[in-house]
């Protein structure tokens, strides 16, 4: 069922490209062999056809993805997303150690020494090397 749905999603993306993305987000040029739309349109048609084919013949399951609990993964993704947003808002130095600490805790680490290392290592080392030593800017 999942396989058929993914096929439908691919076909739907093909339709979205043809109906909206390509007409609105490319410019029309009146000359030349390969127009800006030529290759995207070919890809969109291919996606539509392949997606429909997948919906009809889902076939073998494909590469089996690694087993992950979807809930936990979604939680980690949300935390990281929030961290990246906060970094663009408040800067690297205040945010990175907090993000690292949260992730170390989410991974279930409860030993103080390791938590400290997780918080300290990457953020502080990056800051020392990039900002202080190389004089390049961080977020």
């Amino acid at each position, binding site marked *: 069922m999942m396989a058929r749905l993914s096929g439908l999603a691919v076909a739907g993306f093909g339709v979205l490209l043809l109906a909206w993305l390509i007409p609105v987000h490319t*410019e029309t040029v009146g000359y030349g062999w390969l127009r800006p739309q030529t290759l995207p349109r070919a890809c969109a048609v291919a996606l539509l056809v392949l997606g429909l084919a997948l919906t009809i013949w889902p076939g073998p399951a494909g590469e089996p993805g690694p087993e992950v609990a979807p809930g936990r993964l979604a939680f980690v993704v949300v935390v990281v997303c929030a961290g990246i947003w906060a970094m663009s808002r408040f800067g690297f130095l205040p945010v990175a150690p907090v993000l690292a600490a949260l992730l170390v805790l989410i991974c279930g680490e409860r030993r103080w020494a390791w938590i400290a290392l997780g918080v300290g290592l990457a953020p502080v080392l990056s800051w020392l090397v990039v900002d202080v030593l190389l*004089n*390049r*800017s961080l977020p």
Partner: protein
Amino acid sequence: MLKHMIGAALALGVSAGAAWADWAPSGPIKLWIGFGAGGETDTLGRLIGKEMSDATGWTVVVENKPGGGGIAMFTQLATVPADGQTIGMGVSMPVLVNLTVRADQVPFTLDSFDYLASVASAQLAIVARKDAPFDDLAGLLDHAASSDGALVGFDAKPQELLLNVLNKDGGALRPVSMKSSAELVQNLLGGHLDAAFNAGTHIPYLDSGELKMIASANAGRHSYAPDTPTVREQGYDIYVDPVFYIAAPAGLGDDVQSVLSDALLAAMNADTVRDAIQNALHTEPSGDGPEATRAMMDDGMKNVATLFGK
């Protein structure tokens, strides 16, 4: 605070002129470069930053903001406060082309910036193999007419438009889009193109005698090839002049603008920077200050409009 006062004192020390006002930056100056790290223009910008810092005592932090040949950087630059703490180095052509063709999509205009200084203009040539049966544009067009058209490689939109101008009387030049000067030279040498634009990679091949220069595509002739006439001199009133320049968000105030401009022009005249400009762009620093740089951009707008037939 003390550091800044010393910086200001140093700044006053190096400038004999009375044009220096009281202004000095209140923290590190950010010099944004509209290109990725590691290229010659990146190194050039970093050297200008370093020389400026050495001469004035200010802290100059150089940051790369690549994307769209500088459009991404200028988009961001137009939104920061006009306090003289953030300036950006880019190249004129992509800005002028996008302001001409898709002004509605570009969130800034020429007036969004105060112009500080021009660095130099990239030397753009039209070259061909030594054994090509032509030596100038008229010969190239004749060759194209007498064969199945001539393939001419280019690596930026304005160059293609210049070819369209050459083609206006039914010429048979066929533009081929490539990615870089290096790719263009490779395809010329391999005999896959009849002629090509080039911004410097061709110079050693002129020395070795494998390539010859057909025209300078800039407004003026090139210092290393003073005998090769420009496209304009060959009868087509058109040119492509990609100028590297430095600007700040509009509203600096005259004193801030002149302090920054003088510091930048002094840095560009330092020996290391002169060398770097020579090595990267094959020319001398332009030496243009605020007014001349703004005039260059205004003239460039008119020229690009001509290129696009607007």
